[in-house]
């Protein structure tokens, strides 16, 4: 903050309570979810051991943890494979979605003509398209990528389109008065206005790209995607290796959390100086 703060020299009772509550909240934010996690694991463990649940029905947390460690040589490359597919799909969704959004906002004709088809692409369940992609697209990898891309690109497209149109009308007038070119208007006005919307879309698309990648691994199979986490999970279920199945599932979750954390961090870093969503309100 570059504005000088006239900090009050003393804390009154109300402020003390507020300060204490803030301190407690800061600690609880981390400890409470950790505690819930520990208790759930304990409950899971007790349930499995006390009832003698067979490992092919529900393995306990210990064998699952063991599997993560013992099968690491298998799981780690699988995680890389799934990450690669997800990130590639997300990258294509971002470039495709942004390019299309810019085209839509630059040409009303393009938007009128093509937007309905983007919606159709979005509302058709990707699982229903995947087998067709497999038939029509020669490369199974491309088919898998398309599959993940279709799921991920729509939130980018729709958010960015809204964002590009959301610039202040008076600023548009100002740009007209100063004789701005189309490019300047896009670069200096529409694009920065769209940034918060785009980043919101990116966070949704990150999760969806992972879902798309998992679906692609299930439907198109390891010939196309390579042996990713979802393929590993599927194979483990065929072999009744439920420890590995759960291990793969947990790693998929961790991957999802990682993607969410990274996109949130990007969003925070890009908006922290000016956008309401990234600001801490004082008081």
């Amino acid at each position, binding site marked *: *903050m*570059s*504005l000088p703060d006239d900090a009050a020299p003393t804390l009154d009772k109300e402020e003390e309570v507020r300060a204490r509550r803030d301190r407690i909240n800061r600690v609880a934010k981390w400890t409470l979810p950790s505690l819930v996690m520990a208790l759930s694991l304990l409950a899971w463990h007790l349930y499995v051991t006390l009832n003698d649940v067979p490992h092919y029905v529900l393995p306990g947390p210990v064998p699952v943890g063991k599997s993560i460690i013992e099968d690491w040589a298998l799981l780690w490359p699988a995680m890389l494979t799934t990450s690669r597919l997800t990130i590639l799909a997300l990258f294509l969704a971002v470039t495709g979605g942004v390019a299309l959004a810019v085209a839509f906002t630059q040409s009303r004709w393009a938007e009128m003509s093509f937007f309905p088809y983007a919606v159709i692409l979005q509302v058709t369940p990707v699982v229903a398209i995947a087998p067709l992609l497999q038939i029509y697209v020669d490369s199974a990898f491309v088919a898998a990528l398309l599959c993940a891309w279709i799921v991920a690109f729509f939130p980018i497209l729709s958010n960015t389109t809204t964002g590009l149109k959301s610039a*202040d009308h*008076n*600023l548009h*007038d*100002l*740009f*007209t*008065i*100063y*004789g*701005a070119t189309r490019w*300047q208007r896009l670069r*200096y*006005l529409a694009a*920065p206005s769209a*940034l918060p919307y785009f980043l919101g879309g990116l966070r949704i698309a990150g999760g969806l790209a992972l879902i798309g990648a998992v679906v692609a691994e299930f439907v198109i199979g390891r010939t196309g995607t390579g042996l990713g986490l979802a393929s590993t999970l599927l194979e483990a279920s065929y072999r009744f290796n439920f420890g590995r199945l759960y291990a793969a599932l947990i790693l998929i979750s961790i991957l999802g959390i990682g993607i969410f954390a990274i996109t949130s961090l990007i969003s925070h870093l890009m908006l922290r*100086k*000016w*956008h*309401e969503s990234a*600001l801490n309100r004082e008081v």
Partner: protein
Amino acid sequence: MTARHGRKPLLTMSRIEKTFRGETVALKDLNLTVNGGDFLSLLGPSGCGKSTALRLIAGLIHPTSGRLEWSGERGVGDLGIVFQEPTLMPWLTVAQNVWLPYRLRGKSFAEAQNDIKSALELVGLSEFSEAHPRELSGGMKMRVSIARAMVTRPRLILLDEPFAALDEITRFKLNNDLLEMKAALGCTVIFVTHSVFESVFLSDRVIVMAARPGRVISELGIDTPYPRHADFRTSNEYAAHTRDVSNALGEAMGAAA
């Protein structure tokens, strides 16, 4: 009409009409000569077409009929505008916001730096050049907006009810400062307002407009010489002028009904 001595016409509007969508007559038979150095207020109730007139002058819309002529070339930097809202870009710093008119002309920040600095000095915000708009109060944001309009040293500055949303203390202060800025810059100002007091304090010509259809009802000269200070607000002269302008506005309201 009452051209001040020695002032040359800057902008002449003759028989301007503007009709929106073929049915709403926003302006009817507007004749107005703006002279270089004028501080001209457009005063009237809502719907009298004062903002439409401003947008016509800015070239944002074009008249349905009539002529609008500038004397001499109108360059890109000849016009500055301040809207009712500060209309700043929240992602840029104060200095970068003021840079905008130059930036759109392809002038780098370094090249424009001196002009930006002196514009911010003029509005009293030199210390805040690196702040983001959200860190500023409403009045300060408006000052940035004014600095942006002045940075190119335009011949004409348009202000569209810029202080309507501010509290009275801030508004008085900005009124005083605006007069100083105008004197320092030597530009022409067209000021849209619905406040009789503001128009009398600021301008040397008050154009009173009536609504439905938007048209000019009368023009009053405020001949009190500049510089005008806060004591002008409490003078008898000021009271007399506001009475005259209020009466004219009352007529305008009556004519509209």
